[in-house]
């Protein structure tokens, strides 16, 4: 049953603040509603962005002003029993422990095991020496010399490369979600499609049963490289389907290309819609593409319009036969059924 949209509850859902029954309702709705899924991804990106807010130290002058206004007898303060100091120190420890506990209890799922591979990776402020755990809401960070492996529930693992900052967002059996703030990961997942997600500042990598590497910087610029299976890279209502042996720049229009494609084609795809350094990247893509590069051309169709779209269609038609039921007119109108039919045929060549 298609329930009401759940926009208002998405932040609470992502933060694990909904009651289990409500969370299940929201999850069921999300499975059926692309609009709310897109909104959930947008909010998740907003949350990842807000993590860039650093704490600002209060100026010392504030305490000086407060001290002047402090009502009290200095002699009484000197003679005050010091026991509160011990209590305060103990309280600080409890606060720190409590904070970790709170992060654990509000996590919407289980903790995952983290194993140090090299150097001194950290989860929150705690260095991982051998093995440790990470839960929803927690960050793992590696420096230039450290690496770690996260066991992703029962479905696979993620290797965390040096200089990486990664947040675990959800650890539920029906949603395993990370946010890659910067750096590189290698995910090896064996699970039904759409159970493992990695958000970046520019989009979300959705596992369709695969092994892949993903790099991203804080601006969302990076590369998804699929080693096995398929990954969907999704953002702003656009989906890029990336098969094994292909890569997809995460910034710009998200056009995948095969790793063995001509270098000129790959450079043109990287430049397409991102920089103006090449005179006409589309010309290069069209002239350099092989039959197999219909992967790139098919994704270009919906990213260009007008005469450019017609040029892309004509090049695809020249490289591979257009299947029955796919007309030029329907394809140029981006008719969903037509594109789906064409894609089903092209999949055999990708």
């Amino acid at each position, binding site marked *: 049953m298609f329930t009401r949209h759940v926009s208002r509850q998405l932040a609470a859902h992502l933060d694990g603040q909904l009651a289990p029954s409500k969370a299940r309702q929201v999850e069921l709705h999300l499975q059926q509603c692309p609009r709310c899924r897109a909104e959930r991804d947008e909010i998740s990106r907003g949350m990842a962005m807000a993590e860039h807010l650093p704490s600002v*130290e209060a100026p010392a002058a504030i305490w000086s002003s407060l001290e002047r206004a*402090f009502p009290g007898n200095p002699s009484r303060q000197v003679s005050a029993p010091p026991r509160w100091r011990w209590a305060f120190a103990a309280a600080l420890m409890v606060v720190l422990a409590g904070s970790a506990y709170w992060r654990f209890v509000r996590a919407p799922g289980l903790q995952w095991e983290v194993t140090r591979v090299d150097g001194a990776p950290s989860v929150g402020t705690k260095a991982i020496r051998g093995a440790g755990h990470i839960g929803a809401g927690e960050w793992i960070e590696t420096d230039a010399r450290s690496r770690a492996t996260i066991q992703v529930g029962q479905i696979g693992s993620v290797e965390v490369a040096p200089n990486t900052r990664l947040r675990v967002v959800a650890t539920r059996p029906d949603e395993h979600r990370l946010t890659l703030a910067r750096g590189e990961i290698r995910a090896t997942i064996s699970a039904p499609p759409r159970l493992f997600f990695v958000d970046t500042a520019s989009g979300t990598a959705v596992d369709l049963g695969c092994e892949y590497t993903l790099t991203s910087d804080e601006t969302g610029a990076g590369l998804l490289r699929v080693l096995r299976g398929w990954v969907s890279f999704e953002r702003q209502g656009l989906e890029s389907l990336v098969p094994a042996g292909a890569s997809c720049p995460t*910034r710009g229009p998200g056009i995948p290309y095969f790793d063995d494609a001509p270098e000129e084609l790959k450079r043109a795809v990287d430049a397409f819609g991102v920089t103006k350094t090449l005179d006409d990247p589309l010309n290069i893509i069209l002239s350099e593409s092989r039959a197999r590069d219909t992967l790139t051309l098919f994704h270009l169709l919906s990213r260009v319009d007008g005469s450019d779209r017609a040029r892309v269609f004509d090049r695809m038609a020249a490289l591979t036969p257009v299947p029955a039921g796919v007309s030029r007119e329907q394809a140029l109108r981006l008719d969903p059924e037509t594109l789906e039919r064409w894609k089903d045929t092209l999949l055999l060549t990708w």
Partner: protein
Amino acid sequence: MVRLSGREISTEVIESCRSGDRDAFRALYDLYKDRVYSIAIYFFHGDAAVASDVTQQVFLKLMTTIHQFRGEAEFSTWLYRLVVNACLDAARSRKPDFSLHDRARMETLAAPGSQEEDYARAQLASSVRAAVSALPPKFRIAVLLRYFDDLSYDQMAKALNCSMGTVASRLSRGHKILAERMKAVRGTQV
């Protein structure tokens, strides 16, 4: 014992503050000052003078009313209620809410001991600060409470004097606006 958001803090610290112990108050101040100041400075678009005033008012109020704190509410909820009220009161007497001058100041507000290693990262951080500061006040304060202390939605609801549903809604809309604005910023940088 006074419950503090699932954490415990000895009533002795509170009692010592109540009895006018300057050192106890200093310890409480040291624990919360940066969080209170950070919320204020991002709420007021990087205006350090207003943020200092608000922080001072919050702790003055804490100092003069801590004898009224009986532990029925959690201490952090009580403190952040003071922060929210001080911010909203100061905002009401300070219009317009966000000027071009504020935007420029927010974008140049340096992170203390900045870890930003390159230009792109610094640009992103300043853009996020500017985007958060440009959120409507009710969304902005909710987003800031979420980031500068580990409050549950229930605690935020009490600090903001609204329902948990409203907190969830404001955080959803606030983060969505934030993502959209950052998308626009990134778009213009392409």
